[in-house]
């Protein structure tokens, strides 16, 4: 197979035939095949790849992809009330500008000298999250909230040296699935076995009696989410963490950070490890790709050595003139060496971390408080309007943040039917949670954020009413 002479490719400077020839000559071969002899013939693919003919011109390529993407209906054209772990919040223009800077988009693993800016942005992210969470130790985020929760559970298991964890029923099913994968809980023996703790179907609050019944000296941690997956604000945090601590277990809480301008941070009610998603902090949804899971904890030697994710620390320069950053390389503690499975880390969500940092810097204390208040008022307004529709019930107590459950049993319609009809009204209705929480009947999870206006919410109410008639 000889070198094929073709015109140069814009992305490949050395594809110019003369350059290629010159380089081959300098290497001392006449054909690239001579360099490929390291791969035995029997392992070679002796044909061309069967892929579509290329759209070499950038204008053709762009047109082609845009046409495919135009088949999508977006949450801009449709009025969307979908949430359940990924939400449509406003992304400030400054966040986009920074997240698009080629310096940040194309950097990777440079050290504190050549990539000082990146490292500083990471440290600033950790610092601002530290203020939001009122915790001293925050790590660089991992892939998403599910993985963060999974890693947090594994951390707790190592710290407590126990292999059972209690998880509230009202956590996100997606996240639970990921946690189960990290715990290998379905295997016998499980790495970490999982028991679920019930909730009060009327109030949505965690069932403390069930927690007390299930917790034991084998429990490494209790994990619950606040607000819960169903939107409810859990007010028994103090009791839950006390029960955990009385039994020598860790208290892990999963939070939506955009609620922390108005809701008490979990550290206030005894949480040891906190996790959550940075998605609401200035990340576009990207069809579920704009997510990142943070982990934070109290400052303490037993925690530092258990983080699977990197901890960026500030460091002074030797000559005392400034500061730089680096990964905290802590002394490992004894129990760390015995763990059966050390966790892994690697490339996670650096660019999103920087975007979230910019977002928090823009918001400031007033902004994060105000957006929480706006979200509460708007979501409650929506719930009020929906509950005024005959045969629609809004479940649980009045204490919810951003998301609430609307039930359609009385209307004798499934959520699937309702949502399909709402699409004709150019509305994405709430996520169908019927199969996830069968005890709640035909129910949907509606999310209302800062981007929804009063007109939007009135329109939702009108359309729902029309659909249910």
């Amino acid at each position, binding site marked *: 197979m000889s070198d094929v002479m073709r015109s140069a490719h814009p992305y490949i400077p050395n594809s110019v035939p003369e350059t290629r020839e010159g380089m081959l000559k300098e290497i001392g071969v006449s054909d690239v095949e001579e360099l490929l002899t390291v791969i035995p013939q029997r392992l070679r693919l002796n044909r061309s790849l069967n892929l579509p003919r290329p759209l070499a011109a950038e204008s053709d390529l762009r047109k082609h992809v845009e046409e495919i993407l135009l088949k999508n209906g977006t949450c801009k054209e449709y009025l969307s009330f979908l949430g359940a772990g990924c939400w449509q919040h406003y992304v400030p223009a400054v966040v986009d500008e920074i997240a698009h800077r080629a310096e940040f988009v194309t950097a990777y693993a440079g050290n504190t000298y050549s990539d000082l800016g990146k490292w500083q942005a990471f440290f600033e992210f950790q610092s601002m999250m530290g203020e939001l969470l009122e915790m001293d130790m925050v790590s660089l985020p991992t892939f998403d909230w599910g993985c963060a929760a999974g890693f947090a559970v594994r951390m707790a298991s190592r710290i407590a040296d126990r292999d059972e964890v209690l998880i509230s029923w009202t956590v996100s099913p997606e996240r639970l699935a990921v946690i189960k994968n990290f715990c290998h809980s379905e295997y016998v023996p499980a790495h970490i076995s999982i028991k679920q703790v019930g909730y009060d179907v009327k109030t949505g609050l965690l069932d403390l009696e069930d927690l007390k019944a299930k917790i034991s000296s084998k429990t490494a941690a209790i994990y619950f989410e606040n607000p819960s997956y169903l939107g409810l604000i859990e007010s028994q945090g103090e009791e839950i963490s006390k029960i955990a601590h009385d039994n020598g277990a860790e208290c892990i809480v999963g939070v939506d950070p955009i609620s922390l301008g108005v809701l008490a941070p979990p550290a206030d009610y005894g949480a040891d490890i906190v996790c959550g998603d940075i998605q609401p902090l200035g990340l576009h949804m990207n069809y579920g790709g704009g997510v990142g899971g943070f982990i934070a904890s109290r400052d303490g030697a037993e925690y530092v050595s258990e983080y699977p994710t*990197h901890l960026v620390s500030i460091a002074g320069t030797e000559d005392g003139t400034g500061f730089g950053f*680096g990964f905290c*390389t802590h*002394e*490992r503690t004894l129990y760390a*060496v*015995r763990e059966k499975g050390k966790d892994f*880390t*690697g*490339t996670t969500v650096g660019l999103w971390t920087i975007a979230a940092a910019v977002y928090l810097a823009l918001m400031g204390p007033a902004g994060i408080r105000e957006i929480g208040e706006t979200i509460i008022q708007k979501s409650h307004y929506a719930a009020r309007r929906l509950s005024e529709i005959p045969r629609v019930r809004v479940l649980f107590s009045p204490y919810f943040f951003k998301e609430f459950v609307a039930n359609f049993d009385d209307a004798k319609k499934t959520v699937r039917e309702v949502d399909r009809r709402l699409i004709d009204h150019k509305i994405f209705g709430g996520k169908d949670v019927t199969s996830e929480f069968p005890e709640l009947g035909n129910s949907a999870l509606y999310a209302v954020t800062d981007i929804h206006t009063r007109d939007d919410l009135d329109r939702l109410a009108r359309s729902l009413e029309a659909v249910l008639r």
Partner: protein
Amino acid sequence: MRKKLGLIVNPIAGMGGSVGLKGTDGEEILRKARQLGAAPTAHTRAVEALRELSALKGSIELFTYPHDMGEEEAKECSFNPVVIGSIQRGKTSAADTKNAAREMLTRGVDLLLFAGGDGTARDIYEAVGDRLPVIGVPAGVKIHSGVFAINPRTAGQLAVSYLRGEVATSEAEVMDIDEEAFRQNRISARLYGYLKIPHDEQLVQNVKVGSVPGEHESMQAIAWEVIDNMQDDYLYIIGPGTTTKAIMKELQLSYTLLGVDVIQQKQPVALDANEARLLELIEGKKAKIIVSVIGGQGYIFGRGNQQISPRVIRKVGKDNIIIVATESKIAALKGMPLLVDTGDREVDEMLKGYSKMVTGYGRSAVYRVA
């Protein structure tokens, strides 16, 4: 606070080598060497090492012994040393080396740099044990101990790195070669002890992966891997060395660092056993041998653990040999195979080939034994 460096030069080290003699221990040999016109090499070696430290001249305090035990070398490199102790020029001996080391320990030096051979290393070990870190500038004929740098310049550079806080410490073997056997061209080595040395691998940050476990942590991990897999009906013969003895430490049993201990069901059965005792203990029983890599050359049998003789090895069986080593110890072999020299060619052959080694908790490696 200024760091303190101690410098000890053994003036007669290395004299034997150039005239074909093996070592300068003993007055007889020394006299013979001088007769043959031998010149001491320790001086030039020490100066070569010390030059690497010129950049630190103003920021460290240098303690040394008089005349050619360090004072001359220090002054030649334009250091302003604090000279302690007293000696009789031209008539120095092991006692002087030991006194020097002890004195420097009392003065609180942060690092001891010495020029000499295995004998000097042994003297220093006897004087200070592992209570302060040392670096050996190779200047003797017998350089089997792991406390020596490859060459004088490297010794100096490592000293700089350590004083700058760029490297941590680990342990290295002090080997004692049987003099008589050595002069008759037979190598018979004994593990004498362990000195603390700067670990010649910079504390680095690797952005792409998690943090790298330290030596100490790795040894603990290895110990637990072995312990968690121990079977009650087996005797465990634990060879000398810090990696193997980490097992005893984790089980909180007393042990002999340089000898062979035996345990069963995590309880002690024998301490510092010799071949006869080992044979006695394993007669008719199931047993496993746990050995590590001794010395920089990669010996797992034949250097420092001869109590685990060919007879013992035969009785236990190749499949019951557990080799333990940390990844950095293996890396230090630079790809060279592990070596065996039991004295019995058949047993040596049996041991050759690819073997599994325990390198961490749930981690093992396959490496060649030659």
